[in-house]
């Protein structure tokens, strides 16, 4: 009862990847897969037990000031704003921390405030803001010094759909103007799909996919959704193709290219005509990757 047993978990295991300048890389993985640990390592918050990393020519965990001046970190669940004061006061503090000139500070602040349309809220106490509003200010505070590398850990977590969309628009617009390199983690595949050119999928601390978003959508099968009660389906069809029921009374089938024709004919023969192919989405692919746990790289 008094002796605690020590449990060690290897958060990240042997893998390596490189991010090029100006790239938006999406980090995807289940809870506990190692995404946040990776961000903490690359931003210098954690020391690794083994291994190395180089960001902008620096070893992050040496925590050189020259390095810190060039990175921006947003951790959705850790506020860097002064809770009892308006956000503008936190920005002022950051202006001194990053030693920004007046002109630089004004220019960057105006740009960020305009991009997010939060002119009126900057004088409201942070604790009175909604989560979505506060996240915008968190991001502004982290980008005031115009960092070259930006780490965004779940920037859209807990936000409503409109705020999520605003956040994505902001990130894209910002990257266009500043050509910053961005590492973003998210559980919302729409974020990854719209924001990133490339994704790294982590599972149990290893990379199971590292490649383009476009390639993620190239599945070896197509998904057919059939709007029909699966219980009324002829057994010949049920036995031949695996079906997955959907909760709206329809079901879906994954078909290889050569199976499409026979399957559709069989359905039509059975008098079922209400079906459609759905566009491949990365969510499905990610679920596959995380469930298989196998390594795929392209």
């Amino acid at each position, binding site marked *: 009862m008094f002796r605690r047993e020590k449990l060690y978990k290897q958060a990240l295991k042997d893998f390596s990847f490189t991010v090029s300048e100006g790239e938006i890389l999406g980090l995807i993985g289940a809870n506990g897969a190692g995404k*946040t640990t990776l961000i*903490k390592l690359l*931003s*210098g*918050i*954690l*020391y690794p037990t083994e291994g190395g990393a180089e960001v902008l020519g620096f070893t992050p965990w040496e*925590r050189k*000031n020259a390095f*810190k*001046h060039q*990175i921006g*970190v947003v*951790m*959705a*669940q*850790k*506020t*860097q704003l*002064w809770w*009892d*004061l308006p956000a503008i*006061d936190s920005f*002022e*503090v*950051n*202006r*001194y*921390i*990053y*030693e920004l000139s007046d002109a630089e500070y004004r220019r960057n602040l105006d740009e960020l405030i305009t991009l997010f349309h939060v002119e009126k809220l900057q004088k409201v106490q942070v604790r009175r803001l909604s989560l979505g509003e506060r996240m915008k200010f968190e991001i502004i505070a982290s980008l005031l010094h115009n960092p070259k590398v930006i780490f965004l*850990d*779940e920037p859209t*977590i807990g936000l409503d759909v409109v705020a999520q969309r605003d956040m994505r628009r902001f990130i894209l617009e910002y990257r266009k103007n500043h050509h910053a390199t961005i590492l973003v983690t998210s559980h919302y595949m729409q974020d990854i799909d719209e924001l990133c050119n490339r994704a790294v999928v982590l599972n149990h601390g290893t990379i199971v996919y590292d490649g383009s978003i476009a390639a993620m959508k190239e599945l070896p099968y197509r998904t057919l959704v059939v709007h029909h009660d699966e219980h009324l389906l002829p057994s010949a069809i049920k036995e031949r193709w695996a079906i997955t029921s959907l909760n709206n009374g329809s079901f879906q089938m994954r078909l290889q290219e050569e199976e499409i024709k026979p399957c559709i004919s069989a359905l039509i023969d059975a008098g079922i005509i209400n079906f459609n192919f759905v566009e491949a989405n990365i969510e499905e692919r990610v679920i596959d990757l995380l469930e298989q746990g196998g390594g795929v790289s392209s």
Partner: protein
Amino acid sequence: MTKYVKISTISFSNRLEYRSDLFFSLFSKVFPFIIQVYMWKALYGGSADGVLLNYSYKDIMLYTIITLFVSALLAVDVHYKVAGEIKDGHLSRFLVQPLSHMQCKASEYIGEKAADFVFIALIMSIVLVALSAVGWLKLSFLAVLKFLGAMAVGISLQFLLFYCLSAAAFWIGECGGVFTAIGVISSIISGAVFPLDVFGPEMLIISRYLPFYYIVYFPSNVLIGRVSAVEFWQGLAVMAVWFAVLMASKHVIWKNGMKRYIAAGG
């Protein structure tokens, strides 16, 4: 204006957001004082010659009043704050910014305390003038100057001591109990509850080599006039040595602690 001055000024405004809390936290210090007054009254009532441990009733009252203000000026909560940051992962936000965490905390401390300082110093001045008017205390400009010097070094020592202590959170996580225990012990061995003479001459000599002696007992006695010029400079020298020792310890403790930091939370 440097980044640390800015952090101090913003902490000052932040503290003013909670003016009533500031008032009550100062007001709460009056109650232990009342208990002490009654305790000494009872003790001196039972003594034949009216002198205990070389202190007359008047001396002990004077000591109790002065230490009330000194402890109020010394109140530090940096260990609770920093241990919380370590435990819940808020420390991370300081690690990614071009800042020294200790200097940042010291600046916050100065800013937050500035409001308290002004208030305490004001009441203290009134009380001191009153005490010297009734002849309990001989105030001289030099004594006040020496007291301010000793207080400044004492506050730095106190801050540094508790900043080092906050690193305990790297190893034990939840520190509330440890901090409460250490807080009580430190207030006793620093002389905030009663003069260190209570423990006998041997302990008094030993305590001269500990930093706690210089936090409350020493500056209070400088103001009262129980410290000779030589003792004053000796005291400052010991404080300087402790300051250096604590700075070095802080470096080692934090360097090792940081390797255990897990940056909890998403």
